[in-house]
């Protein structure tokens, strides 16, 4: 069974990657299982300055998922590169993906330039789709022009592969995807969370301290799958599929829809061992389905 896949010339031992924001900075889970089972790790979204994030409650449960409004809590790009990533590298040999967020084109450029200088980082994931911050994040990912502008600006300061992480909260995700590809993106990650809300009907106020948050979990899988398929059909650059993936069968379904690698997000919050379990289940599921090499099934639909 060949589980190896390749993103822009970078080999991953398997396509399984915990998604940004659902696996901290990697080290948190080092005591729970061997991180080297993972094809890659997408680190928690990082900004130029340290951020506390939003007030609590940041979490609201939903049928088949949850809403989060963490709001990009992170130690800032300098601490990420000086402390977190080197510490992770000591125990992890797979692909490290830095997820970069910002409130201006200059901030994206600043962070990507710094991350570019780190030999510990393999791929830059440019997050233009965080729904939980005001005046940045998703604002760049809901306009083809702004997304292209960020993409071109960061491409100019890094030689590492740049994956742009797209928002599902748009009318036509393929228009944004094509704009990023035309601006030089090496790949695309999708989908980020779907903007949602919950109301406490007793207290008559939103469950989360922020009125709206990002909805993710098993329920979004069909939406994510459809968007991955649309984008993989519209573009020729590789896609990391993300959204509602909870088992090895979902990984295969996501790859058939067009993903070269697959990120696992909200499921980590209910089962922190799930990524390790998926990597262990993949070979037997492949055998059952008659798949010898995962690369054969990418975008068969």
């Amino acid at each position, binding site marked *: 069974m060949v589980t190896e896949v390749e993103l822009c010339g970078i080999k991953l031992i398997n396509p399984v990657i915990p998604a940004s*924001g*659902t*696996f*901290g*900075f990697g*080290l*948190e*889970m*080092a*005591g*729970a299982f061997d991180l080297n089972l993972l094809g890659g790790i997408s680190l*928690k979204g990082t900004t130029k300055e340290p951020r*506390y*994030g939003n007030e*609590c*409650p*940041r*979490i609201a*449960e*939903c*049928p*088949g*998922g*949850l809403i*989060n409004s*963490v709001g990009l*809590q992170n*130690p800032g790009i300098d*601490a990420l590169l000086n*402390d*977190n990533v080197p*510490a992770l590298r000591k125990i992890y040999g797979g692909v490290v993906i830095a997820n970069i967020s910002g409130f201006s084109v200059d901030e994206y450029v600043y962070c990507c330039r710094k991350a570019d200088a780190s030999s510990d980082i393999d791929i830059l994931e440019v997050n233009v789709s965080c729904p939980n911050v005001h005046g940045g994040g998703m604002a760049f990912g809901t306009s083809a022009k702004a997304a292209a502008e960020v993409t071109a600006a960061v491409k100019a300061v890094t030689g590492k592969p740049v994956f742009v992480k797209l928002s599902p909260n748009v009318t036509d995700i393929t228009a944004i995807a094509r704009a990023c590809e035309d601006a030089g993106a090496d790949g695309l990650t999708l989908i980020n969370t779907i903007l949602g809300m919950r109301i406490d009907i007793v207290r008559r106020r939103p469950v989360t301290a922020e009125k709206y948050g990002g909805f993710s*979990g*098993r329920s979004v899988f069909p939406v994510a799958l459809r968007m991955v398929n649309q984008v993989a059909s519209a573009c020729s650059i590789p896609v990391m599929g993300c959204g509602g993936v909870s088992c090895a069968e979902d990984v295969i379904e996501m790859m058939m829809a067009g993903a070269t690698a697959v990120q696992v997000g*909200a499921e*980590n*919050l*209910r*089962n*922190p*061992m799930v990524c390790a379990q998926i990597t262990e289940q993949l070979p037997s599921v492949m055998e059952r389905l008659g798949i010898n090499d995962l690369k054969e099934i990418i975008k068969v639909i």
Partner: protein
Amino acid sequence: MPTAIENMKEGTYTVRYNEKIATSVFRMRLDGDTSAFVRGGQFVDVAVEGFFLRRPLAVREWDGEGFDVLYKVVGKGTEAMTAIRPGSILNVLTGLGNGFDTSLCRHSALVVCGGLGASPAFTLVKELKASGKDVTLVAGFNTSSDLVLRNEYAGLGVNMHISTMDGSCGMRGLVTDVIDVLNGEWDCFYTCGPTVMMKAVCAKMDIPGEVSLEERMGCGSGICYGCTCRTTGGPKRVCADGPVFKKEEIIW
């Protein structure tokens, strides 16, 4: 930098009992591996059929065969838990959170609980007593029908100094009123209960203390940053850096 979760274990547990012990309060015993528990004040995260997120529940006590938790019915998830029958198998993350530090106490400790805060404090008190420390226990409830664990604490040789808001049991008023009446001398305190109560206790007590915070959680295991609180040492995760913090760390 965030610390790794060293002790967490995932496993399946068999429900031995799941019984109502006070108004809207249930006690559930789960049999299985307890090797992940190292301190009183730690918690577990229980997967409940039909709900996406687990339910974080403080551990009252464990032994070689299992552990028990007290929980209050506050929403659909805990409501569903009341229907779990003995013999059911549940998936549980164990050994979560840091727990109380008994080394804070030299000779005598004041333990102040509110409501179900009496549950995670139980193993703390048991450990303090086992190491020969004097323990004064103050427990506040809304009303007498909310009262829990009085007999269990008596079994440790610890008298529960009770306050209720309506005066239906013990002293009428707040835990801080009981502390005034006791007028004792302690070298440290521990507190677990509603935030307003713990804040009042911290403001009142001019000795070292530990506080067990509560926040709505996502993962319970330190990876989602959904339960962050402000401390003098920067943002901390209640689930993984806490839930127990030093009094002086907390920015209320």
